[in-house]
Structures are given as structure tokens and as C-alpha cells.
């Protein structure tokens, strides 16, 4: 309990600006304000997270067809005897 005594003495020697009643009132206002801001921020985060999930779902959808499309392009180029300048990006087994 030595620490608490030391602190109590230290704090009691400090002159603060407002009375305990005023402090409590301002602290309660601060709590209300913070709760409101937290609720707003949480709601914004929830909306953004949902949007991100939609983007991720769309990304996965587009990515799922790109290997087959790229393969068709490569096959056609080979059939036509065209030079393939760049290595495939989406056909995994043909990547080095």
C-alpha cells in the first residue's frame, strides 16, 4: 500500500482547475461524445468491410476465368504460328 499512499499524497498537493462536480459533468459529456464517435466509426468500418468483401468476391470471380481465356489465346497463337512474346500470367503450370 506504500505506493498508493505516496500517490495519494502527491495528487492531493496538485491544484486542479475545476471542482469535482464540474469534472464529473465534463467527463460524462466526454463519455457521451466518445460513445457517439465510436458508434459512427464502427458503423463506417462495417460498411467499408462489407464493400471490401464484395470487391474480393468480384476479384475472385474474374480471376477464375482468366487462365482459361489466356490458354485459348496461347493455343490460337500457336495454331497460327505466331510468336508468343510475353510469358503467361494466369496459367500456373506454364509459369517458370
Amino acid at each position, binding site marked *: 500500500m506504500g505506493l498508493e499512499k505516496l*500517490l495519494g499524497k502527491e495528487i492531493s498537493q496538485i491544484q486542479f482547475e475545476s471542482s469535482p462536480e464540474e469534472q464529473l459533468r465534463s467527463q460524462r459529456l466526454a463519455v457521451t461524445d466518445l460513445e457517439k464517435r465510436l458508434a459512427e466509426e464502427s458503423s463506417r468500418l462495417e460498411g*467499408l468491410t462489407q464493400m471490401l468483401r464484395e470487391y474480393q468476391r468480384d476479384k475472385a470471380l474474374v480471376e477464375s476465368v482468366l487462365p482459361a*481465356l489466356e490458354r485459348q489465346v496461347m493455343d490460337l497463337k500457336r495454331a497460327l504460328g505466331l510468336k508468343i512474346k510475353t510469358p503467361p500470367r494466369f496459367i500456373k503450370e506454364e509459369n517458370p
Partner: protein
Amino acid sequence: MTEVEIHVGKELSKMIRELAKGSRMSREEAVGRAFEEGLRLAGASEQAWESLHRKAGVSDELARTSKRILDLRQQWSSTDTAYARTNFESFETFNAVGHLLMLYNVFRSDVQNLSRMARDRGIEVSVDLKSTDIPGIKELLDRYLFRREKAKAAATPVTDEGTTDMNQSG
């Protein structure tokens, strides 16, 4: 007093004096911050919070309120950080989808042109574009490519003189 208590006590005393002197924060805010740091320094549990406040002459209600404020600030800060991270990831993913859709368009166009070329040369090729159709592709293109282009165009309006007015916002 143990050595740890003396060390923590000194640190806290110093901190409370600095807080009270250097800023216009309220009593319990100064006490709250100092105690929070003290608890961290001492490795004490948070259960000591109210006890410490009581010993320091702060009412239970004030102690609870100041603790609530600290908790709320902590939560708000974490949520704000999570928002910034998600916002960045969201922006990156949106752009990535737009880029992939452009490649999708290029590949499909290549397949059509190359198969036409093959037919013209009498080369037999089997092409199956249908298997790579994306359901709702029009909406996707609108969402990730055209809408972005429209937004860009709206952001740089053209003035009567036919020049772009950079001072106006869309």
C-alpha cells in the same frame, strides 16, 4: 515499499506533476493517464484502478468515468486504425478488379480476332468463349471501369472557353 514500488511511485509522481503543470487537462484525466502508465510499469492488474483512485481521493464515480473514457479512446483508436487499413485494402482491391477486367476484355477480343484470322487461313481451331462468360459482366464493367471514368470526367469540368477549370471540384 519495494524497490519496484519506489521506482513506479517516482515515475508516477513525476508524470502527474508534468501532466498537471504542462497541460490544461482535468484532474482525473491527469490521474487516469498517470495510473494507466503506473499500472503498466508495475505490471499490476486493472483491478487496482479504482483502489488507486480511492486512495488518491477521487470518487468512485469519477474513477469509473475516467476509466470508461480511457477504454473508449482505446476502442475508437483501434476502430480508426482498422478503418484506415480496410480503406486502403478496399482501394487496392477495387483497382485490381478494374485491371483484371481490362485484361478479361483484351483476352476475349484476342480470342475473337485470332479465331477469325485462323478461319480466314483455313486453320481449324476449337474456341469456347462461352465457358469463360462472367455472369453480370455488364454490371461489373460499369462498376469498376465506366463509373470510375465517369467520376474522373466529372471531377474536371470544362469551362465555357473550352479549357479545363482546375479550381472547380466535381
